[in-house]
């Protein structure tokens, strides 16, 4: 896919927003790929974590918010712990999700559409955690 690197896009507002919400300076990333190598959910991701960070560095925000990767992340923090540059990639992922939830006002999943049997057997912490990540 062609990447538009116009000044306007590279310096998009969302870049700063991610930095602020995620509370992490992802410009420090030098693409070693440690995060993607250790990510338990990487197989399911359409964009690997280190590539997602690179896209954000280049202001390619529309690619990020359309991605499946930001929703597949289980926030296990393995990436952040292993990052040699101290980037909190888990925080970065959360920031991407939050921007989508806050601006689009559409939830990633609808609690009331979940299977009744599942709702009856899941421990509370599964639902609370999930809704905090996927609903705005």
């Amino acid at each position: 896919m062609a990447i538009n690197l116009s000044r306007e896009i590279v310096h998009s507002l969302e870049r700063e927003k991610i930095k602020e919400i995620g509370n992490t300076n992802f410009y420090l990333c030098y693409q070693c790929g440690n995060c993607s190598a250790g990510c338990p959910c990487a197989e399911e991701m359409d964009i690997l974590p280190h590539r997602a960070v690179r896209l954000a560095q280049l202001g390619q925000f529309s690619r990020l918010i359309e991605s499946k990767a930001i929703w597949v992340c289980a926030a296990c923090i393995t990436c952040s712990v292993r990052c040699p540059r101290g980037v909190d990639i888990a925080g970065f992922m959360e920031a991407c999700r939050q921007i989508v939830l806050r601006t689009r006002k559409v939830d990633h999943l609808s609690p009331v559409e979940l299977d009744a049997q599942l709702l009856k057997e899941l421990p509370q912490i599964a639902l609370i955690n999930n809704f905090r990540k996927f609903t705005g």
Partner: protein
Amino acid sequence: MEISYYPGCSLKTSAINFERTALSTLEELGIYALELPRWNCCGVMFSQSADNLMLQLAPARVIMEARETGRKRLLTLCSMCYNTLKRSLLFFKRNGEKLKKINAFLKLEERDFSAEGVEVIHLLTLLSELDTSNFKMKIKKIKSNLKVASYYGCLLTRPREIALDGVENPQIMEKLLEIAGFQTVNYPFKTDCCASFQVVNRRNVVKKQIRKIVTSAVRNGAEIFALSCPLCEYNLDSVQQELAQEDETFTPIPVLYISQLLSLALGQDPKLNDFSLHRIDPRPLFKEKGLL
């Protein structure tokens, strides 16, 4: 010794046997856990949105309740509660400005929120601080050759600043289990994530993780899992059952909270364990090993 105790939602429902066995184990060792008189859900996961203080209110309230008891230490059993409360406490210690904001919001409730004077401690840390010889003396069951795989998951050891042991290769559970007379096994995925809350809408991600974790543990000789997170327990237990139904070659092994094993070793009433809450019944294994 008395200590404040924050249960958390799941400890009152799906993980009630975790609470019962943990509290009775502590009591046997001379520690009385006093449940906070009033408590709310801690929020389950420390909020990663740095700008939204609303998400910090839940843990802040729990910390307030703990402070009001006058006891310094706050015990948690659930790994998620531990992580959330400990990180939140740290967050407010480091961000005086945010603490002020929370206080301004809480002004009408006439409560004073401060991050000082409270310490969040997990069951595992509390147990490992105790006198080992005293612990050993109380062990009633004969040395068992049950091979236990400790499963830490994410939240006991990540991020580094709140880790209760080493980040990549923690040993705290193994040490406790060995004191209690169990054998422990080593395997590479003990701190790998079980895919957590993805179980709600992406069960396949969880399944893949569980298969990897269980297969590795079993290959290394594990007969049972020990853990301290009600969500890991649900994921390992229910997904293993599902995998076994789909694939005959897959060997499921029982999943227990660490306190359940300790309680058994201490010779406490097995009823505390309420094994019916587990999908993979551990009783046949325990009988075989002389623990029941």
